[in-house]
């Protein structure tokens, strides 16, 4: 994991001299992503910069990398896990290598296959390749959006980076609030597609590449999750064999590094599987795990983490988090996330990556992605229940399952079955909608708009979440099963827009730690897409075939544990003197003119009177208000006022 940045114009850079120093400063600003080395490459049409976190080929893998033979330059953030195999294939075609890096493999692959080489990559990446001979640049991002890549084009000049704040360093780029992004985020919890919270600054979408030349800009999606090929009717044992083989392969690939690779351990099934598989490949190699614990026992999973430590003998380092620990660094969360958040859950992970960094490590493997591909989330069960209730609204068998959906929410209790049934029956009117699985979320999220001032609400009313999403859905979407549609939407929204970004990459890279995700290996994603629905959600048993595959190597308490989603203390963590004095007060809220102070104040009062029993919606609303207020404040301050970054050695390459 590193940081990349660049300024490019196929007609030549208009402010070449200024942009040289600017690009250097942009590169230095990403020190948290790449503290080990810095480099810049200058040419007539483009400057690219790289802040390196050295993981593969420490000695000779410096970037940006320039190939004089092929007249190509690259700045690359990420890892290509199958690079040894790709390198072997290129050597057979008489390519010579000067380094042992995956970066050089990318350049040679591009030389051989053009941008179509991207289909051959198994990795997590965001890169820019300048093809000087053809006077064009390619920006590309991995299939599911593990690594970030943002860009804007102003007067023909493309400016891109891993961090939006870095793009904002360019004097021609304004920091303006993205209302469309906000509208999306209150409905689906995240931005969608190429939208960001900064107007006119876009994201390269997962599975997309962008080409920019004198012919203009063209974008193409090279990979997307699909269920068009249908599912295969294999036996359970056949699937278990395939899953075991593929996941072992995915873990093995992700162990490739010239530095130690450790693991995060949550106490849940997915990270337990990852830990066992890592250990299984090299039992003699020292492996450590890192966990988050909570002083509030409602959120704490220490028991299960210790269970896995006893089972594996692996040393675990736990970071204990209190609500104060969350509130104290919440500003940093928003600063790194570069968007408002709807949960405080990123904050403990910020602390955790700090601990990993303190211990001198750079890489961790984690279980993210399993709940999406193997159907672990409660939204899958919820969709299943709602789908069956839509056919028969008074079906007691399905109604009786509602309380099990969110047992940590007080209202999801058998006592309240009648009320819950009534609540869900209301949501059954749009069963034909492509967004059916997410309609409860969309409906609940709208409540926060009641806190927004009327003129802002009017601005937001221009947008329509269905119009944002539905036209982008693949042609075959309407033929997929309800749960396949649920997975697709969840991967496009929560996974990409929040879990891998605000909670994932941004929190780990804040302390120069790279996360690796075996469950998001595209071979794993594609394999699970072929598995029949009933083997993923079996009745109400989530991740059924995944559990069955690894039942023999895991403690029974881990496999049989019901889904405990990772959560952290929420609104109460942000009811701190610092946050209230700096952001959630009449002066700041009125000055910003975004939220209605009268209602915000009432919500603060309500939460202060009852800190222990807070509804999901109140938590969501309050965290949204707090983080959005911080974000808007940063737009006028922290995001645009950059210090002169310390003059660290920056390696320079000139291309003539």
């Amino acid at each position: 994991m590193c940081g990349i940045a660049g300024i490019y114009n196929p007609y030549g850079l208009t402010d070449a001299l200024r942009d040289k120093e600017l690009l250097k400063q942009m590169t230095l600003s990403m020190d948290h992503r790449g503290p080990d080395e810095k480099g810049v490459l200058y040419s007539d049409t483009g400057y690219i910069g790289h802040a390196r976190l050295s993981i593969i080929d420490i000695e000779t893998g410096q970037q940006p990398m320039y190939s004089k033979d092929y007249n190509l330059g690259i700045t690359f953030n990420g890892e290509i896990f199958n690079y040894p195999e790709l390198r072997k294939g290129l050597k057979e075609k008489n390519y010579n290598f000067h380094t042992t890096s995956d970066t050089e493999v990318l350049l040679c692959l591009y030389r051989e296959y053009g941008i179509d080489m991207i289909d051959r990559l198994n990795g997590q990446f965001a890169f820019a390749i300048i093809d000087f001979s053809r006077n064009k640049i390619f920006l590309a991002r991995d299939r599911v959006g593990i690594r970030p890549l943002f860009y804007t084009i102003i007067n023909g000049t493309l400016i891109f980076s891993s961090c939006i704040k870095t793009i904002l360093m360019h004097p021609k780029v304004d920091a303006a609030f993205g209302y469309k992004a906000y509208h999306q985020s209150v409905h689906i919890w995240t931005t969608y597609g190429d939208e960001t919270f900064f107007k006119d600054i876009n994201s390269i979408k997962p599975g997309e590449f962008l080409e920019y030349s004198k012919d203009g800009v063209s974008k193409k999606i090279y990979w997307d999750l699909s269920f068009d090929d249908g599912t295969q009717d294999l036996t359970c044992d056949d699937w278990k064999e395939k899953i075991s083989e593929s996941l072992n392969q995915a873990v093995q690939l992700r162990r490739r590094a010239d530095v130690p690779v450790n693991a995060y351990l949550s106490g849940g099934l997915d990270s337990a599987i990852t830990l066992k598989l890592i250990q299984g490949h090299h039992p003699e190699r020292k492996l450590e795990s890192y966990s988050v614990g909570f002083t509030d026992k409602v959120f704490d999973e220490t028991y299960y983490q210790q269970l896995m430590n006893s089972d594996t003998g692996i040393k675990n380092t736990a970071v204990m988090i209190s609500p104060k620990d969350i509130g104290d660094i919440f500003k940093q969360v928003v600063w790194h996330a570069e968007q408002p958040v709807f949960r405080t859950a990123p904050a403990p992970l910020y602390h955790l990556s700090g601990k990993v960094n303190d211990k001198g490590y750079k890489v961790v493997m984690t279980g993210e992605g399993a709940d999406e591909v193997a159907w672990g989330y409660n939204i899958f069960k919820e969709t299943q229940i709602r789908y069956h209730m839509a056919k028969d609204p008074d079906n007691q068998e399905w109604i009786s399952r509602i309380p099990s959906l969110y047992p940590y929410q007080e209202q999801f209790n058998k006592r309240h079955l009648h009320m819950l049934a009534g609540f869900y029956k209301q949501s059954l009117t749009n069963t034909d909608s492509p967004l059916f699985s997410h309609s409860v979320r969309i409906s609940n999220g709208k409540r926060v708009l009641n806190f927004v001032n009327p003129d802002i609400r009017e601005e937001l009313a221009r947008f329509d979440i269905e119009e944002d999403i539905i036209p982008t859905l693949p042609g075959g979407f309407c033929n997929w099963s309800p749960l396949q549609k649920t997975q697709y939407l969840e991967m496009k929204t929560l996974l990409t827009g929040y879990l891998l970004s605000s909670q994932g990459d941004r929190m780990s890279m804040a302390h120069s730690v790279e996360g690796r995700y075996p469950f998001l290996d595209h071979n794993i994603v594609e394999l699970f897409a072929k598995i029949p629905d009933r083997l993923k959600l079996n009745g109400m048993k989530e991740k059924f075939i995944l559990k069955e595959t690894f039942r023999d190597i895991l403690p029974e308490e881990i496999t049989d544990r019901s889904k405990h989603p990772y959560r952290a203390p929420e609104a109460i963590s942000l009811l701190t003197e610092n946050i209230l004095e700096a952001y959630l007060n009449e002066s700041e809220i009125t000055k910003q003119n975004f939220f209605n102070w009268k209602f915000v104040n009432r919500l603060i009062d309500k939460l202060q009177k009852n800190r222990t029993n807070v509804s999901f919606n109140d938590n969501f609303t309050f965290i949204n208000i707090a983080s959005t207020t911080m974000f808007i404040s940063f737009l006028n301050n922290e995001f645009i006022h950059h210090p002169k970054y310390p003059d660290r050695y920056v390696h320079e390459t000139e291309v003539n």
Partner: protein
Amino acid sequence: MDIMDKLKQGVCAINVVIEKSDIPTDEGLLASGILDSFGLIELIGFIESEFNFEMEDDEFTGDNFKDLTAVKAYVERKIA
């Protein structure tokens, strides 16, 4: 303050963006969006505390909690 006034006060304490004068008495509490599912639980807590009785599990029905008029009638029966 009569029972309906107190109920409306309770609703305002739960849904902080609604004004007392805007609370309908004959519209479904969930259907109108005045309260969400957790809000109904909060309303029960409020009623029990304000009117000093404990609700039985089987009293939490669609009929008793259909709208504020129904809730008022339920409370009146309980405190009579």
